[in-house]
């Protein structure tokens, strides 16, 4: 009997302990929340009146979300510390903390696999808004659309704003991101391979770097004829990642995503858009593109290029580094414009920018420190290095001399200066949603489920719905 009672007491004790620990866990959180709240209030009080949180001695912890950008690896001078995607954020924040010991960082690297920002969205929806976000402006734009980003115009010296290339910011609009580099898209060619098969004369001349769709197809035919396992080109549509590379084919047909500044509806649904869709589909259906385009993604292209499995691809500056420094057998890349239809010569270039944005915060000290950090990241200490790593020109005129661009990247920058830039919606808050309805239509077209006309019409219909929401 005694034994039974002892057992019951022990068991009851255990149950109370378990229940108690659950309650304690809850209390612990709320206690923690309270202390954080108090701390943040205290920081806010201290921060009021200070122009930059970093200059105050009050400790500030900034939450930084950074997209795992493949191009921000192997940073010159920090090769050992930046082997993996996202490592760069630790290196930069450590350097900033050395200069501002009161500012520390809590870093989260967003997995880039799917090309979306689920992780950050979930945090925001659950009420945890970070302080800083580093990513491509195409993905950042969504948060500006939701009214979550800080306008940094007031905090920037006018000379800094003027230092950015024309058109980076709207004249009096909000400066909701500070760009670090400028990725221009072009056609990247394995020049060494064309030399090897004796078809280099089919490529555009260096002084123009422009070609027609017929000339483009002739070059691909030469690769096909060589029949040595090299794919003439590659298109991909498994997910939205890297889709701007393939959009390059649209501009050469005179197709545009929007009618000028009016971004309430897409403008692709015309004859020019249809010609471009048909051309892309023909590349796939006629065996010019690597098989299985609907299941390939830009990571596949990035893997095929240095292995010399593809001769011609839509790409960007990073492919120059990849060809010369990462390939087992380095080869000469040659960058030219996307092909154009007769009568649509010199198509404009699509450019997007990796940038840093600051989320709005009621904590003045945090806000000031975050803006200060954003300027530091987009400033002369780091932005030129990041441009170098991604093989991209700097969007700041005064940094031009600090970035050693490869010949090919410089040539594409020259094309952009000559032909102008195309507005494909990179700063439209709905751009991410547009991409999500663009990709399935490409898949349907590449698999033969839809004709180019059906795919284009469905994209236009879905895109207009997205923009109208």
């Amino acid at each position, binding site marked *: 009997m005694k034994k039974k009672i002892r057992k*019951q007491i022990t*068991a*009851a004790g255990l*149950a109370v302990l*378990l*229940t108690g620990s*659950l309650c304690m866990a809850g209390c612990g959180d709320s206690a923690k929340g309270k202390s954080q709240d108090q701390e943040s209030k205290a920081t806010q009080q201290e921060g009021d009146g200070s122009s930059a949180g970093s200059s105050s001695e009050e400790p500030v912890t900034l939450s930084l979300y950074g997209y795992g950008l493949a191009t921000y690896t192997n940073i010159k001078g920090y090769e050992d510390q930046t082997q993996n995607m996202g490592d760069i954020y630790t290196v930069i924040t450590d350097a900033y903390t050395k200069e501002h010991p009161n500012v520390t960082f809590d870093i989260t690297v967003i997995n880039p696999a*799917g090309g*979306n920002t*689920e992780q950050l*969205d*979930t945090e*925001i*929806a659950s009420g945890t808004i970070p302080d800083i976000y580093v990513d491509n402006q195409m993905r950042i734009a*969504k948060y500006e659309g*939701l*009214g*979550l980003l800080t306008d940094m115009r007031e905090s920037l010296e006018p000379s800094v704003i003027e230092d950015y290339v024309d058109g980076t910011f709207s004249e009096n609009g909000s400066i909701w991101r500070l760009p670090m580099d400028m990725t221009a898209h072009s056609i990247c060619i394995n020049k060494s391979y064309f030399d090897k098969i004796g078809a280099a004369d089919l490529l555009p001349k260096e002084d123009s770097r422009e070609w027609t769709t017929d000339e483009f197809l002739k070059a691909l035919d030469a690769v096909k004829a060589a029949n040595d396992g090299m*794919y003439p080109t590659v298109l991909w*549509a*498994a*997910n939205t990642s890297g889709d701007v590379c393939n959009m390059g084919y649209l501009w050469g047909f005179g197709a545009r995503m929007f009618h000028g500044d009016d971004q309430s509806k897409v403008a692709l649904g015309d004859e020019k858009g249809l010609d471009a869709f048909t051309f892309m589909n023909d590349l796939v259906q006629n065996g010019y593109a*690597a*098989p*299985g*385009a*609907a*299941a*390939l993604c830009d990571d*596949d292209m990035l893997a*095929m290029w240095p292995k010399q*499995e593809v001769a011609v691809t839509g790409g960007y500056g990073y492919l120059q580094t990849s060809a010369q420094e990462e390939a087992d057998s380095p080869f000469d890349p040659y960058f030219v414009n996307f092909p154009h239809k007769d009568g649509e010569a010199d198509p404009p270039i699509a450019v997007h920018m990796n940038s840093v944005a600051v989320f709005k915060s009621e904590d003045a000290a945090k806000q000031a420190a975050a803006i200060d950090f954003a300027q530091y990241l987009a400033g002369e200490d780091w932005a030129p290095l990041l441009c170098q790593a991604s093989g991209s020109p700097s969007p700041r005129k005064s940094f031009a001399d600090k970035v050693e661009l490869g010949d090919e990247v410089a040539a594409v920058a020259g094309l952009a200066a000559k032909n102008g830039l195309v507005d494909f919606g990179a700063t439209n808050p709905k751009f*991410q*949603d547009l991409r*999500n309805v663009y*990709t*399935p*239509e490409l*898949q*349907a077209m*590449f*698999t033969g*489920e*839809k004709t180019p006309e059906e795919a284009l019409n469905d994209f236009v219909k879905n895109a207009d719905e997205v923009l109208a929401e």
Partner: protein
Amino acid sequence: MDGKARQRDSFFKTLYRQRWAYFFLIPGLILLLLFNILPIIDTLKLSFFDYNIVAKKFCGLDNYIKVFTDKKFLRSYGNTFLYILIIVPLNVVISLLVSVVLSNSRKWLQSFFRGAYYLPCVVGGVVVSAVWMWIYHPVNGLMNTVLEKAGADPVYWLADAKYALISLCVVVLTWNLGQSIIVFLTGLLGINPDLYESARIDGANSRQLFFKITLPLLKPVTLFVLMTVMINTFQIWEVIYMLTSGGPNYSTMSAVYYMYNTAFVSGKYGLASAQGIVLAVTIMLVSRIMNRLSREGV
């Protein structure tokens, strides 16, 4: 004392008699409340709101109307049933056959294959999918290399809407077969060997032993496997995320993956909640039918 009062009295008597049992259930019940009941109630509530990352507005039944008029959701809902129709019967039949063969084999062989089949369950869907990504790859994939060596035309497993869904089913099968095999093996070990012995004395052959003894006695286990595999298949997600993102053109999109996209890619949490409720009600209905069948059958 009327019937109701007597019933109430008996309820409290039972409660008092089993007080320790209920007392010990408290931690579990709190966890259930925190992590299951409350989120379900919250999801139901959210489904009546137009709720994005930052704003929340009551919208009545709008989300439910959108759910039932959204062709893409209906397609993914249909795909989910296709996954179930393919995966569940194949899983049950294959795992049952493998278990029967293994149960008659030597101990060390049994242990080896049990481990081998269960390994994918341990490493998880993401790792299994990563391996299959390489096997199915349209350019450098193992499968097409083998086909090429055999002189056959390559098949674009994940890039062709005809094959993509079936290809994913194969991945899911390799991943979840181990669990069912372990359950069936345990069930087989529970069958009294005397039954087989006496049947053999009566002249029963192997087929008769299987159909007249093994299969009927495994019925509760089979129904358990059916139910768990079916519910897991309803929730199919990581394999799709890793291999196709629901493509090409929504041909492999499942209802749960579509719901995930609605919530975490498009940021429409209210609409995603409505989709979740529709799916939850479907799972409940199907489970209820299965339960009824199991009670009648066993």
